[in-house]
């Protein structure tokens, strides 16, 4: 306590200096009615302590007019229920939840006070009306931000919530706004307002302007105008709505295709390792799914080891997962599969046994519950191309990652010495041996490579689905389908079949539902194999008979 009061003294000194500084600024632009001295800022802030929501409302309005840079943060905290006051000295603070209480920051002085117990704090309560006011206040404040993205967000927030004052505000802001995107959004907002309030002339121009927009708000407003008494307006808005619908449906298709591509990438990632072990070597590895699972768990473990560097941990996890799965894969090959070459059905059974053992091992070590793997900052959020089309970053990264892995694997197989040996052994084992290739070593390495790629797939999957003991099982059948559909022994075939199946699945989902879409895809593949038992792109020539 003593220390605190000591601190308070320095704080108040600092406060005095700061307030001096601010008062100068406020004097310089006190054209608007504003609170131009620190005492008033703090007294306005104190209004927030009031029990009455009306007082709080006033306080918020006054705070906005101060144009003080502290205000926005305070209002945001208030909206998120993180704004408190200390019971003892009624200081307004923002509290960050910690393990042992709340880390609080005094809002008057912007000084961190320290961690206190929850019982020492009291939350500043808000109701729904206040929340609405807060949101629009924050939006207004953000509009004057220096950061264009923040302004853009602020404008977007205002859709559907504008009133005359806000529109006037926006019109005023438009004069100074330089950024094109922000301008477009503001103009859309103003046009929507024109639709509702303007005379016939402005309504018609607004409809014309809006027919290029893709906002759902615009669509709704136009829909309402379709029943307008004036046939000219009704027709114009119907035509505009139709144009918008057409464009929307195009974007929706693009969106579905994007979803399909990302699902396809997942399938390709899961199957590409199998394309090596099954396709090139001819080994039925039913433990392939569990090798993916091991990769996902490796990601989890590495994230536990470096909890403060989530993004970095993911980067580290890629080679680590490759190594873990590759080593397990090589062990499997050396200990079991080696003895079963030429007996595919037995290989299938033995590797299935291994998959059970791996599953149970994970269950014993990590518990049967799903583990959560965190997503780094740069993978969350989405790339917004226009209001109707936004691509989430994690899906975008998965697609890029899949293509990168595929390219790498392709280069390894086509351009390296190992790849050459792999091809030689798979085409004609005894001839390859006669040329001095150590076939059994190549087998082990190839299997390790395929397994390692499965591990990498696990890293990617850990970002999309739950990491649990059943992760592998969920993908094994899909993986086999992709490889068989694409044509065994053909990497390109795997890529194309994965993407095809992914996109087909997503396009069927809207009318068939997720489960039925999957069933239909399975049935389709079963029938397809009847027609073309060797897949889309069968091996040709002598290699096909091996």
């Amino acid at each position, binding site marked *: 306590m003593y220390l605190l009061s000591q601190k308070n003294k320095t704080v108040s000194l600092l406060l005095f200096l700061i307030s001096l500084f601010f008062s100068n600024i406020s004097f310089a632009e006190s054209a608007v009615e504003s609170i131009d001295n620190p005492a008033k800022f703090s007294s306005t802030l104190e209004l927030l302590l009031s029990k009455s929501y009306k007082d709080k409302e006033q306080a918020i309005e006054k705070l906005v007019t101060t144009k003080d840079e502290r205000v926005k943060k305070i209002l945001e905290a208030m909206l998120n229920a993180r704004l408190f006051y200390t019971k003892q000295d009624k200081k307004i603070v923002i509290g960050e939840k910690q393990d042992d209480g709340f880390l609080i920051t005094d809002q008057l002085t912007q000084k961190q006070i320290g961690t206190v117990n929850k019982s020492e704090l009291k939350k500043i309560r808000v109701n729904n009306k206040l929340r609405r006011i807060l949101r629009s206040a924050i939006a207004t404040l953000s509009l004057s931000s220096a950061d264009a993205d923040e302004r853009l967000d602020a404008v977007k927030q205002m859709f559907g919530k504008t009133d005359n004052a806000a529109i006037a505000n926006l019109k005023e802001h438009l004069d100074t706004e330089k950024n094109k995107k922000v301008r477009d959004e503001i103009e859309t907002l103003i046009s929507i307002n024109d639709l509702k309030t303007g005379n016939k002339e402005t309504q018609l121009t607004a409809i014309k302007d809006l027919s290029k927009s893709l906002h759902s708000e615009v669509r709704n407003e136009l829909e309402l105008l379709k029943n307008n008494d004036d046939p000219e307006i009704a027709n114009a808005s119907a035509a505009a709505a139709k144009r918008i619908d057409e464009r929307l449906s195009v974007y929706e298709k693009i969106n579905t295709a994007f979803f399909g591509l990302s699902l396809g990438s997942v399938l390709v990632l899961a199957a590409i390792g199998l394309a090596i072990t099954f396709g090139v070597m001819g080994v039925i590895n039913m433990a392939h799914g569990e090798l993916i699972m091991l990769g996902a768990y490796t990601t989890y473990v590495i994230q536990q080891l470096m909890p403060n560097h989530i993004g970095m941990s993911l980067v580290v996890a890629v080679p680590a997962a490759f190594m873990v799965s590759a080593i397990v894969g090589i062990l499997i090959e050396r200990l079991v599969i080696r003895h079963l070459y030429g007996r595919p059905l037995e290989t299938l059974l033995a590797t299935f*046994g291994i998959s059970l*053992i791996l599953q149970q091992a994970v*269950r014993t070590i990590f518990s049967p519950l799903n583990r959560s793997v965190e997503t780094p900052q740069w993978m969350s959020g989405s790339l917004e191309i226009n209001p109707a089309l936004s691509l989430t970053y994690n899906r975008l990264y998965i697609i890029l990652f899949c293509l990168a892995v595929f390219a790498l694997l392709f280069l390894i197989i086509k351009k390296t010495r190992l790849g050459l040996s792999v091809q030689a052994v798979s085409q004609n084992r005894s001839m390859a041996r006669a040329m001095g290739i150590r076939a059994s070593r190549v087998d082990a390495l190839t299997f390790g490579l395929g397994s390692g790629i499965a591990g990498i797939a696990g890293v990617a999957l850990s970002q999309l689905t739950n990491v649990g003991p059943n992760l592998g099982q969920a993908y094994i*059948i899909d993986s086999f389908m992709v490889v068989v559909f694409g044509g065994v022994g053909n990497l390109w075939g795997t890529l194309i079949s994965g993407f095809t199946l992914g996109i087909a699945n997503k396009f069927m989902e809207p009318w068939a539902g997720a489960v039925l879409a999957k069933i239909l895809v399975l049935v389709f593949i079963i029938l397809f194999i009847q*027609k073309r038992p060797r897949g889309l792109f069968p091996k040709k020539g002598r290699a096909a008979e091996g």
Partner: protein
Amino acid sequence: MYNLLKDDRGGQIFLVLLTFAAILVPILNLSTGVDNPFHVSTLTVTLVGKYLAFALLALSVDLVWGYMGILSLGHGAFFALGGYAMGMYLMLQIGDRGVYGNPDLPDFMVFLNLKELPWFWNGFDNFWYAMIMVALVPGLLAFVFGALAFRSRVTGVYLSIITQALTYALLLAFFRNELGLGGNNGLTDFKDILGFSLQADSTRIALFIASAIALGLGYLACRAIVVSRLGKVAVAIRDAEDRVRFIGYRVDRVKLAIFTFSAVLAGIAGALYVPQVGIINPGEFSPLKSIELVVWVAIGGRTTLYGAVLGAFIVNYSKTYLTGAAPEIWLFALGALFVLVTLYLPNGIVGLLKRRRVEA
């Protein structure tokens, strides 16, 4: 019958044991008191009855895998379909004794707001119709699937994988409530069969005897196929399919006949299984179950028929024991069995016994 079993010592022993069990177990269960050391509890009777159904299923797998070289990873699907057919009959026997007390609709349909029975439920209130369906549904599926697959010469691993896809697709389908077969809860809460309460000891004994008889007849039927010319061609197909085709046999028809028969057998096994355990749900379609039953056959020893039965008993008994005593261990043990048997016991336990005898 004499001809069937002439060269089949294992089969003779098995059938004798089975007959003994079918006679002795009911006597020991019904005539002795609970404290009698020779008493066989009803629980055990049901358990062994379940194993008998599994043994019949194993038999059907051995027939196609051991004698024809088709490793089906979807036989669980035929088993489950037979089970569902039986389950539908039992479901309609509940009548108004369900929770909702609706005399026409099973509980889950009332729950799903259905107004009348879906069309494919019609007729299932008749036992004999249901029994025909038990054989017909799996048989038909196997026939259509096999006709497509065998004609286009899908063989080996590819066939295994698409049979697995088949059962996986069915698994997904049966999980859907819209299918009208109880969704993921499946069919359960059965009350009685042919008017006899399923809870009664005597009914359980009857089911046990029925399973034993079905297994015995199933064995003889498989044996009859195996020693017939059809069976000989099947073995030839397993060993050199192209050669058999070049000689002039219609390979696809031989395969189709035996595959379909095997599926019917699996369906019957499912129908015997359901009243004894009292539930059938989509879990039976899971690819894991189908692979598990391949392991029964592999462990017992394939291409002997009685080996499959032996394997079904051994694996399921250890499963019952281990999942009770040390559930953690069960998957480890099962996994290890897969690996060790394929590596070191290509002919299963039966093969081990035979080798001993040759050495001695």
